[in-house]
């Protein structure tokens, strides 16, 4: 059982740690490996995989240490507030990352594509019709888009529902009803996993049957980069949900102190909001 904040020291400074240096080597290997691999040196993938393994080892160990410190009652109210501030700012940085890609979509759709289709450019590309969704004047291949009110709408429903189930899990945690917490968390995870499967199915369908590929100009690039980074964030979020569920099942957290849980919930809601935006501007509009 966790100790309460009242017995923790007001400040917490961790012991010297070797985890960060593992992380640094991990990123160095990943960068070198990816560079080699992208430039047709096949062995690069092994360097990349080595880096990834090191990164997982580091994250497992580092987060494990944090969990032990937390359950050991070392984190005071002040540390809890620090976690809240830092998670909020981290999510803000993620928002700005997505903003760059939404900005690119906006620019292409509203500025560069119509511009390429205007009268001046008729000389260069007489055949080009700048009606969205479009690849670009230099791409003659055709593609189709995924209708919004099929699988994407279903996915929207999944994520919105998962926002409800995680809130129910949170309420159950506050009520100290462990079995209910785990049940609602398992439901949330299941919704996340189904979402990812649907997204995977949709990608396969788009790539093979609709000829919607990454090289399909403005539409292909923004479609895959936005939904791809979102899917990546859902994957990370699902892993975080699984970790938190296991911790709940093990009896971690108390009805009053459970920022680990809340932080993951915040992240999940953030991923949810990004999807809503995506659904509107990528699929529906």
């Amino acid at each position: 059982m966790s100790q309460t904040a009242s017995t923790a020291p007001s400040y917490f400074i961790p012991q010297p740690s070797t985890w960060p240096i593992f992380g640094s080597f991990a990123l160095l290997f990943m960068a070198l490996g990816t560079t080699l691999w992208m430039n047709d040196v096949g062995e690069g993938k092994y360097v990349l995989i080595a880096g990834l393994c090191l990164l997982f080892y580091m994250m497992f160990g580092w987060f494990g240490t944090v969990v032990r410190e937390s359950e050991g009652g070392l984190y005071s109210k002040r540390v809890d507030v620090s976690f809240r501030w830092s998670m909020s700012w981290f999510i803000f940085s993620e928002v700005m990352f997505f903003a760059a890609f939404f900005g690119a979509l906006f620019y292409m759709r509203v500025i560069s594509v119509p511009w390429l289709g205007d009268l001046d450019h008729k000389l260069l590309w007489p055949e080009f019709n700048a009606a969205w969704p479009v690849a670009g004047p230099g791409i003659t291949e055709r593609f189709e888009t995924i209708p919004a009110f099929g699988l994407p709408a279903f996915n929207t429903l999944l994520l919105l529902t998962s926002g409800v189930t995680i809130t129910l899990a949170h309420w159950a945690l506050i009520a100290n009803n462990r079995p209910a917490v785990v049940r609602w968390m398992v439901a949330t995870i299941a919704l996340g996993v189904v979402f990812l499967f649907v997204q995977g199915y949709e990608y396969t369908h788009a790539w093979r049957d609709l000829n919607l590929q990454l090289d399909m100009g403005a539409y292909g690039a923004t479609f895959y980069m936005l939904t791809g980074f979102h899917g990546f964030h859902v994957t990370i979020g699902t892993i975080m949900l699984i970790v938190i569920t296991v911790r709940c099942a093990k009896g971690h957290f108390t009805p009053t102190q459970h920022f680990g849980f809340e932080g993951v919930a915040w992240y999940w809601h953030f991923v949810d909001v990004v999807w809503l935006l995506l659904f509107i501007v990528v699929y529906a509009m």
Partner: protein
Amino acid sequence: MQATHDHAAGHDHGHAHPTGIMRWITTTNHKDIGTMYLWFSFVMFLVGGVLALLLRTELFQPGMQVVEPEVFNQLTTMHGVIMVFGAIMPAFVGFANWMLPLQIGAPDMAFARMNNWSFWLLPPAAALLVISFFVPGGAAAGGWTLYPPLSIQMGPGMDLAIFALHILGASSIMGSINIVTTILNMRAPGMTLMKMPLFAWTWLITAYLLIAVMPVLAGAITMVLTDRHFDTHFFNAAGGGDPVLFQHIFWFFGHPEVYIMILPAFGIVSEIIPAFARKQLFGYTSMVYATASIAILSFIVWAHHMFTVGMPATAQLFFMFATMLIAVPTGVKVFNWVATMWRGSMTFETPMLFACGFIFVFTMGGFTGLILAITPIDIQLHDTYFVVAHFHYVLVAGSLFALFAGTYYWLPKWTGHMYDETLGKLHFWLSVIFFNVTFFVQHFLGLAGMPRRVPDYALQFADFNMISTIGAFGFGLTQLLFLYVVVKCIRGGAKAADCPWEGARGLEWTVPSPAPYHTFETPPVVR
């Protein structure tokens, strides 16, 4: 309960501490990490400086003498990337690490272990940049702004630069989240926000800017990467994209980035001038608001870097006026510094010399910035040496001079010794003279039409280029004197008092010199 408290507050007194290299690799101490940041940035400063001297050597005379044009482009690019991301930014983070906990009465940064990682991400990134010189095609050569289509056409060196920037960005974001959290949540009782030293305020706002724009840079270079290797068309008109799109995203990051490099400098100068004028800072509140307005305005001026790409006149007008608006809060700051000195009882030790030098020379850089903000003039001066002169006035005489000022100011607190005042003053005078020899003439070169980023030039530019190169070598050698002064101060010298400066105020001067390994384990009470 008491036992737990003692254990965690004095957490490592009873434990075996890693020694030797492992102390530095595993440390969670803000002073150790600050020291590493400062040394790392100084090494990068020397590396970037050597690249700059190679450039100036090639430009000593017209014609091609020393390097091939492709190598010249690589040197230009890497000089920029290394100085911005490897020297100036980490140096300010080093100051933040050392001084913020001392200034706000905290025992350490909010996330001491993540703080370690923020630092230890820098060496791998630096390694990637160094390696990039030796891959086929050489290092990235598109300029530090990495504009497509050049950045899309280059070899693997560009991939390495992109990953280096990703890692540096991750480091900056973690460092900034740490700083914001520390300032917002770790202040000593009674240290209200409006009682904070101005260095803490400027860093709070800088960290906010970093968290907001580093991810945008990450997005931009990720698009370059996918355009390079995964067939996307973000910056290719054939696919409906536009190279100008990159410029928009890059400068949405890039303009706030220049304030990221100057706001902490404002903070340092605002600490030093009151100390040596022996007066309170004039207009503290207006300084805070001016800093915040500069930060907010920095998000709506980015396209002043793009006046020649073919924007609608309305957009040019908007960005011109928005840019000129920034002169108002900046003017407030300069006014306040001068007003602080007014009727002060001033002495001119090295920190004060650098701070005064900062005001003079930075303000000149600010004025050339205003000139460049005016669209019709910028269209004439775009990509000329006038621009090079402008941003070196704000980055070298601005950011770097403030870093020197801060170093001399806090060196007694860091080392416990006084530095050699005579050599310090010599360092200042040589720096300020050689700086102006190097860069003042570049205004004339630019006005006469010499383009930047070229290894060769017309005969008419020969004289000024020769002067500039002589100045650059003088400036570079002078920095070895700085290294000597710092090393000498670390190894010995007159014992520094807890507060060696008569007029200095602030919590950092209440702890012994050198500052003990752990400070403020029991929070001080500020009234």
